């Protein structure tokens, strides 16, 4: 069930360089949300920006829902300047969410840049399910690392300002080659989110090591509900699935990025 609601902004704060976190009051959507799902926000009543913008559910705390974003364009600039108490039009929860019913003991979370977005909520639910968690988080530089809500974290920065110097993909490689994962891949499940080149590299490695892996895919999107068919993601059988409805979470074996 898709819920459309006018939600009050409870907080809006910078949590990293150019990165903001907004907390919204929405009892209905909070209750209905699963990790990996997203909400679609109309950032202003004006005709420009026209379409809603999709944001992963970053976390759910009681009747509140959080999103996180980088200021990259018109819409995110408007969002970053929203004041506490202002109301915005949101719909959600949208999309499928991560599949947590698979048989695995340890979750290997891999986040690149703003790919952190779905993981604090996922971490919370994985903890409730008593799963082991290893988190790998990468960013360009230390000031862009937002580690709240992660547990057992290993970091990578492009400039080496915090943790491993290099990409989160390299960190992932080091991790998976260097311990029990290679011996018992079935005890692990990888959850990845980040830029497309990063996801491609992660998927390739998971294929090689026969690791169960789900990725959260971002695609240009208009409606978020399957009406427009805009957010196509290529599948390995040469067809397309929709990021908004069939995704945004896909098993790495199903898609071709």
């Amino acid at each position, binding site marked *: *069930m*898709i819920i*459309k609601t006018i939600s009050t902004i409870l907080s809006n704060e910078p949590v990293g360089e150019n990165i903001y976190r907004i907390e919204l009051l929405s009892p209905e959507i909070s209750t209905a949300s699963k990790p990996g799902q997203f909400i679609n926000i*109309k950032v202003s009543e004006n*005709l*420009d*920006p*026209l*379409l*809603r913008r999709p944001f992963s559910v970053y976390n759910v705390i009681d009747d509140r829902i959080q999103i996180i974003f980088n200021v990259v364009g018109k819409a995110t600039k408007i969002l970053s300047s929203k004041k506490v108490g202002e109301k915005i*039009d949101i719909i959600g929860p949208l999309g499928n969410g991560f599949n947590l019913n698979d048989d695995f003991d340890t979750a290997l979370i891999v986040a690149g840049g703003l790919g952190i977005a779905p993981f604090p909520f996922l971490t919370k639910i994985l903890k409730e399910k008593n799963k082991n968690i290893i988190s790998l988080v990468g960013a360009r530089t230390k000031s862009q690392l937002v580690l709240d809500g992660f547990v057992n974290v290993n970091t990578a920065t492009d400039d080496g300002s915090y943790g491993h110097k290099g990409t989160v993909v390299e960190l992932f490689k080091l991790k998976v080659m260097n311990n029990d994962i290679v011996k018992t891949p079935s005890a692990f499940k990888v959850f990845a989110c980040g830029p497309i080149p990063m996801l491609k590299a992660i998927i390739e490695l998971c294929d090689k090591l026969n690791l169960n892996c789900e990725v959260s895919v971002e*695609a*240009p*999107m*208009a*409606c978020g*509900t*399957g*009406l*427009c*068919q*805009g*957010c*196509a*993601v*290529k599948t390995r059988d*040469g*067809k*397309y699935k929709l990021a908004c409805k069939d995704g945004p979470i896909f098993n790495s074996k199903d898609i071709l990025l």
Partner: protein
Amino acid sequence: MIKTEVIVGKLRLKNPVLVASGTFGYGDELIGTIDINKLGGIVTKSLTLKPKVGNPPPRVAETPCGMLNSIGLANIGVDKFINEKLPLLRNFDTAIIVNIAAKRIEDYCEIIKRLEDTEGVSAYEINISCPNVKEGGLEFGTNIEMTAKIVNATRKLTSKTLIIKLTPNVTRISEFAKVCKEEGADAVSLINTVVGMAIDIKTRKPKISTITGGLSGPAIKPIALAKVFEVFQNVDIPIIGIGGITTWEDAIEFMIAGAKAIQVGTANFIDPNTPINIISGIIRYCEENKIEDINDIVGSIIVETFPH
């Protein structure tokens, strides 16, 4: 009580507000989200003879007050529509207008034949104006002889209301509307999207995989309005106005320019309740202006000079 019924060809619409093809799925996606029975009608996503997977991504990009799309007519095909979607749609008290697209005249005809054998179709909208497929689509809609042939061939197959959806990507749209009328079409709907383009300046690549796409949304409303008025002035055929309609004021504007009915498209992506809000807005406008019959607005434009 305001009379909201309008007649387009043989089609009685309980009100003039329809949802545009490709912006409302097959109608069933929104069951439970909006009150479909309140709509004047639903125009389905374009159906082709065989299912189509559509164009590669990226398929959409936002532009100022509008969006570009190049979906490439991704659809389930006419047979699956008949078996899986039509039985659900039949239950609603609203007109079901089936939009069809093809790359050959024979295919348009075959689709209509298959739909003629079923129940629940109120009218056909023939898409000869999709800008995002290589064959058919725009190639037909910008060629006056092809337009005539398609209307002629499809007209012979059905007594139901036949609506031809026209492209604005021509010099004189009224010439095309005229041909549609001469070949027996009941109505024309206009406009389909305007060919447009956007480039990512960082990567220097087009923002749409097919390079150009179809521009829709409020950005094209003035273009659409001018085309509706051009056809209204020059051809005596019912017009369904489409192009950037987002508010009830927009809808009234199109009706004043000569549209008997209107379609809401891109605005459904932002809020699928838009058409319902437009219907109540139109009724309120009529009440406030003491207009008893909505048909009195149609073509009520007051002009002192005529455009060339």
